[in-house]
């Protein structure tokens, strides 16, 4: 049935009121995700990546633009009409401690979406809950225990099991492992990859860690102050960044490889990211950009195609070139 992308983010703008001022958290962002694709949304705090994820889930209403899921415009639907579609998209969050109700048993937490949507008899729901827990590597008897009896990594598995309860097609994961210890992160990443294949999921991974996103996605979109500055196939963006901000993020992501540390180009950006309440005019990155020229503070560079599937918003795209010293 699906011809076009499963998710189509089309010129979306999200604004918030901050005191008397308006903050544009997401500023004319477009992004398509094909069925089965794994897309990573990368950026620092204030980039709007989390807001965009929440807007896809309709936790925020966009002020402009459309979000199409399987061809249906979510922004045109009311809450009741949204309900059958909402089943098909689920989100997991950074902090498994805060997102699981400590007073509810794990079985109740995982099965809640099925009960709310009235899927199956009590026995069927219990059976499915146990098999979901098994799918994320937890024992079936976890149903009768409380979240506090589980470690951080196990809690994140519980939230994954709950997200899978309605057999969704799209999974939005916002910093799914950044609260976890290093040795546990890989466990959760492996589980996410396993269930993605098993359930045939399309995924949008939101993270600040570029190395992590490189590991788990097919395509990357890099955001800076509410805008996408570069998108493309993950390998191309990482090994041949076109936007100077992407290049500096790559330069700034520490990797546990002393040799690569020595080989890679070091770009240390000057200053702090500007406030999204008062973003710089024209190219938003020009105040920190190592290669900015006068035109950058006069005209905003549009996001244009530079190669198939590859878009960059920079007057001097490609000038910095590869950052990672390659073997």
């Amino acid at each position: 049935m699906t011809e076009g992308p499963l998710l189509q983010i089309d010129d979306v703008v999200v604004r918030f009121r901050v005191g008397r001022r308006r903050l544009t958290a997401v500023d004319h962002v477009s992004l398509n995700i094909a069925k089965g694709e794994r897309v990573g949304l990368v950026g620092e705090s204030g980039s709007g990546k989390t807001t965009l994820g929440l807007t896809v889930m309709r936790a925020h209403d966009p002020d402009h633009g459309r979000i199409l899921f399987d061809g249906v415009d979510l922004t045109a639907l009311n809450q009741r009409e949204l309900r059958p579609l909402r089943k098909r998209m689920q989100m997991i969050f950074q902090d498994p401690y805060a997102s699981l109700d400590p007073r509810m048993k794990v079985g109740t937490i995982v099965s809640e979406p099925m009960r709310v949507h009235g899927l199956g008899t009590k026995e069927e729901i219990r059976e499915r809950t146990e098999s979901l827990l098994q799918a994320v590597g937890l024992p079936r008897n976890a149903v009768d225990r409380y979240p506090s009896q589980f470690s951080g990594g196990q809690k994140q598995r519980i939230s994954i099991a709950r997200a899978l309860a309605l057999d969704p097609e799209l999974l939005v994961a916002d910093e799914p492992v950044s609260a976890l210890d290093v040795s546990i992160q890989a466990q959760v990443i492996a589980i996410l990859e396993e269930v993605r294949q098993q359930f045939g999921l399309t995924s949008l991974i939101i993270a600040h860690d570029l190395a992590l996103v490189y590991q788990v996605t097919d395509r990357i979109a890099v955001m800076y102050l509410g805008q996408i500055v570069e998108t493309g196939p993950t390998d191309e963006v990482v090994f041949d960044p076109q936007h100077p901000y992407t290049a500096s993020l790559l330069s700034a992501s520490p990797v546990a490889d002393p040799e690569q540390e020595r080989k890679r180009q070091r770009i240390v950006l000057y200053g702090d990211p500007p406030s999204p309440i008062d973003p710089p005019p024209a190219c938003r990155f020009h105040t920190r950009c190592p290669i900015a020229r006068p035109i950058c503070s006069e005209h905003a560079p549009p996001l244009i195609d530079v190669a198939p599937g590859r878009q960059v918003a920079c007057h001097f795209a490609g000038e910095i070139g590869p950052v990672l010293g390659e073997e």
Partner: protein
Amino acid sequence: MTAEAAPQPVRGDRVLEVENLRVSFPAGRGETVSVVKGVSFGISRGEALGIVGESGSGKTMTALSLLGLVPSPGIVQAERIVVDGIDVSKLGRRQWPAVRGKNIAMVFQDALSGLNPVRTVGSTLVEAIRRHQELSAGEAKELAIRTIRSVGIPEPEARFEVYPHQLSGGLRQRVMIALAVVNRPSVVVADEPTTALDATIQAQILELLEELVSDAALILITHDLGVAASICDRVAVMYAGRFVEIGSVDDVLSKPRHPYTAGLLAAVPRFERRKRALVPIAGTPPSPEEVGEWCAFAPRCPRALERCSIERPPLEALEGHPVACWNPVER
């Protein structure tokens, strides 16, 4: 520059020597549980040592014990902890203020809680200066502004007057660093100094810390092997209260010998053309009371032998750098 005739720093001189450090807490019924179980290391001026570990490994308690900051009712024991020739393991609570900040100083993860919120940046710095140096108010202010400038804060005169909450996270962390170095200590201990910061700001702060090292010795506590790799000369990997491996960054991160170090490295993503699947470490770290006189990593270790759950391997340099393992990874 300073009123005190401080001895000229010599690169390479030993400024910190720690021997058999233990930190324990009462666990009820007269028992104690130790979270640092006998750690020894030294560091010289101009050197950066990374102490890498996961939560609960004891890395933060190790750091705090070097400054007499282990919270009550924690007990610090050591053969010796010598900072600048002073054995601080024998210091009483009243003697610490003369050493802390002057010989050894700390940079915390969260600058907002590390700085006094109701005092301006300038008055915090001036107070710290005048605690250790006999300078007039004017001279102290001058030194404070110079230090603010030296840590890369723009408009230092204006920043002298602001409160910590008026600064961005990155600038606050720079103020913390200024506060740590203003009395030119021999040892700076930084506990996850960049964990709360964005990537591009982290890069700035790491660069600043690296510059710092030329004048002092830096101990960088971190959970992030990449952060350690980027600015440290040596790295110690900590697990369940003990160092399991210590050596040059190249030896430990490129040719790890302890299965835990190797496991951590296999579990973190990196930028490689040919992507490999991440290999998780099974299980979770033990709680301190579960650790006995055997290898604490054995239950999770793919290379564990029978001996590993009976007898604890000492931290020994067999060939190359010291490793605590009965069955180390081949080089």
